[in-house]
């Protein structure tokens, strides 16, 4: 596994090897150089589809076949058309996705933090069972119950049309049903790393439990709140199954549902338009990832690597 598997042209190697004059070339390549070859190969694999979609989004031909010559033409016509085609409410999809994602993320963090605080700091009957149940619940993603969710919302809709099928508020409520299951455990672990003596000190100073929670704990666990909010936002923004079943009106749909319908029927015809939509949809999420990378990595690995 640790042997070089990629060969490269000698000129290429010499150029890169020139920087490392202290070691003889052969030794440099055996120890470090081949790693760069692997790195470049992986970068091509990782980045090419993204470059391709960026290039397609700037291509005025409109079709799939026209998109195969990368960056031949650069034209922002597709981006303009995205917002001007009456049958394609892209701006509405974008706003819906951001609003639903943000509301869900904020509420998820809040509900999860409340529960994690209780599990981490309070001792009560049923605490162990509660934590075990959460561990169990998080194994069952909500999309497994999509049929029941659909029927539940259609039942609710008969009584309260505001919360039923087709309602974004209803969809957010469904997502919040998964708030505890997915994230509490992650937060619980982080809450445990904040020393309990800080709470004790505040209590001696006469702080109430609410003051300790909102005033002290939430500030100290801010990194994990950011991670959970981001994961929740990204998860919600990419969620297709439940959103496609609940949101029936095109103008209320999210990017996942809307873009899927745009491209699934006539892949080739709408290709560059879809690409432009994909780039716009992906940029906010990817920026968040790059800037919060440090937190995300620590949050993701917190469960296993300590």
């Amino acid at each position, binding site marked *: 596994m*640790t042997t070089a598997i990629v060969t490269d042209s000698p000129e290429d190697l010499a150029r890169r090897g020139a920087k490392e004059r202290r070691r003889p070339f052969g030794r440099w390549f055996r*120890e*470090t150089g081949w790693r*760069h070859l692997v790195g470049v190969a*992986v*970068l091509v694999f*990782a980045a090419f589809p993204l470059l391709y979609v960026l290039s397609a989004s700037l291509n005025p031909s409109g*079709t799939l076949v026209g*998109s*195969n010559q990368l960056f031949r033409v650069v034209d922002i016509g597709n981006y303009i058309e995205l917002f001007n085609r009456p049958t394609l409410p892209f701006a509405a999809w974008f706003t819906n996705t951001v609003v639903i994602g943000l509301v869900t993320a904020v509420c998820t963090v809040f*509900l999860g933090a*409340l*529960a994690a605080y*209780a599990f981490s700091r309070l001792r*009560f009957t049923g*605490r*162990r069972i509660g934590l075990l149940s959460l561990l169990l619940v998080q*194994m069952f993603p909500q*999309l*497994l*119950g999509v*049929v*029941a*969710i*659909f*029927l*539940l919302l259609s039942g609710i809709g008969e*009584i309260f049309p505001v919360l039923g099928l087709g309602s974004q508020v209803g969809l957010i*409520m*469904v997502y919040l*049903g*998964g*708030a*505890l*299951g997915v994230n509490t455990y992650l937060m619980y672990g982080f809450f*445990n790393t904040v020393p309990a003596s*800080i*709470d*004790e*000190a505040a209590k001696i*100073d006469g*702080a*109430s439990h*609410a*003051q300790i929670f909102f*005033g002290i704990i939430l500030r100290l666990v801010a990194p994990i709140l950011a991670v959970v909010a981001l994961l929740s936002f990204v998860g919600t923004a*990419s969620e*297709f*199954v439940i959103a496609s079943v609940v949101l029936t009106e095109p103008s209320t749909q999210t990017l996942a549902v809307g873009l*899927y319908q745009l*491209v699934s029927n006539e*892949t*080739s015809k709408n290709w560059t338009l*879809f690409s432009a939509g994909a780039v716009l949809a992906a940029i906010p999420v990817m920026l968040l*990832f790059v800037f919060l*990378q440090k937190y995300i990595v620590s949050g993701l*690995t917190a*469960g*296993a*690597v300590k």
Partner: protein
Amino acid sequence: MTAPTPATDERRRARAALDQAPRSLRGLLVKVAILGVVDAVAVYALFVLFLQREWLVFGIAVAVLVIINVVYLRRGLLPAKYLLPGVLFLAIFQIFVVVYSGYIAFTNYGDGHNSTKQDAIDAIVLTSQKRVPDSPTYQLTVLDQLGLLSFLVTDPEGNVSVGGEDRPLEPVTGYGTDATGKADELPGYTTLDFSGIVARQAEIAALAVPLSDDPNAGSLRTPDGSRAYLYISTLEYDEASDTFTETTTGEVFRDNGHGAFANSSGRELVPGWKIDVGLENFFTAFGTESIRGPLLATTAWTFSFAFLSVATTFALGLFLAIVFNDKRMRGKRFYRTLIILPYAFPAFLSGLVWLGLLNQDFGFVNQVIFGGADIPWLTDPWLAKVSVLVLNLWLGFPYMFLVCTGALQSIPDELSEAARVDGAGPWSIFRLIKLPLLLVSVAPLLISSFAFNFNNFNVIYMLTGGGPRNVAAGVDAGATDLLITLVYKVAFGSGTGRDYGLASAFAIIIFIVVAIVSIIGFRQTRALEEIDR
């Protein structure tokens, strides 16, 4: 809780934070305000439920409202104060939903079997109505009362009555008439003028006002908003024998025990109604040849897909982590930042982007990389499987890379140093020291990755839609379908009718598998020990 004496600097930190914290009066006001809003909404909901006579839901809502108020207004009950909001949502939209799925799996819920038997009878009577030939013409005025439409009817003898949907005609007095003697207004109602009728044309055309309580008596409908005619069902329902009789042919339709009325030759009236069918859905799933085969194939592929996804992403991620875990190598940050990109790209978009890349006729892969070849990446059963695995490798290897990098860096260098001194080569150091230590820490993540990929809906549905479809199958199953995409297609698919019961039966199968996997997962994790801390 016994409080140890806190260190002084911690007291200082706490006090500093406290100074910025809201004072308790403000906290109280916020609490009362939020509780007030929740109570107001809840009371409104109770009011609506009361009017709609939904007694079971009403009872549950009252109980929840009482619990909320008790928890937040009483002193103490601290854990409940923090747990209640999340638990409420969890109970309704996760736990109830699972239980409800279980229930649906034992019903014939689906297209044509959506509601109760009474609803089905009413619907059959209504849809089979035909205008009675040569029947009298009723003079009609359409009335509106708070959005609800009613018919004000003057029959040929000059008797005036009013009625609406589900409200049979009742004689009225106190109405106003126009020059021809037709009643055209009634106190408490607004008369729709011509433009009002045009605006609500569809609603008016769909309205059927029963003549009396007996559904067989027929109902009045209007084609134009000013004249109504008697429509009588060609199917007559007899309550005593629970049968429908076709009035023209005398054919009898009986309850066939499967939630529908059927005649002797098996023709069913639509709609039917929802009944409990016991294990029938499971018998259909495992007993019908045309469904059992595809279902077993799908289950096998779901396991293979989940396993191969974890194996390939972990292998590539680990390999890269080792390659880049070298102190002398430059530009590691650069590589790491770019490698994370596929992971940051929204998953549903990845499937669609690769859908274009792998397009058989015009895609980049066939046209440019394979020089105009005609490789059926997404339409050949085996190549489609390869394609989804490659896409999932692209999506998943950055995560495994991050995880493995973290795990490798947490292994102390001294261990490898000591082994090297003892004469071990790089390969033995990796195989005998690093790999076992790494596996201990990433095993739980591998198991949860397996569980995730077991239900990796987006990748499959966006790239292949589960296809290419197995044409011999009795359900819409294809070569790359996972169980979860199968559930979705059976329940909401466009080609075949919606069958919620069968879809839920499939979902139950997933539940069982996931439960088994998570039990294995539990044994592997150290999570259990942490709970007891």
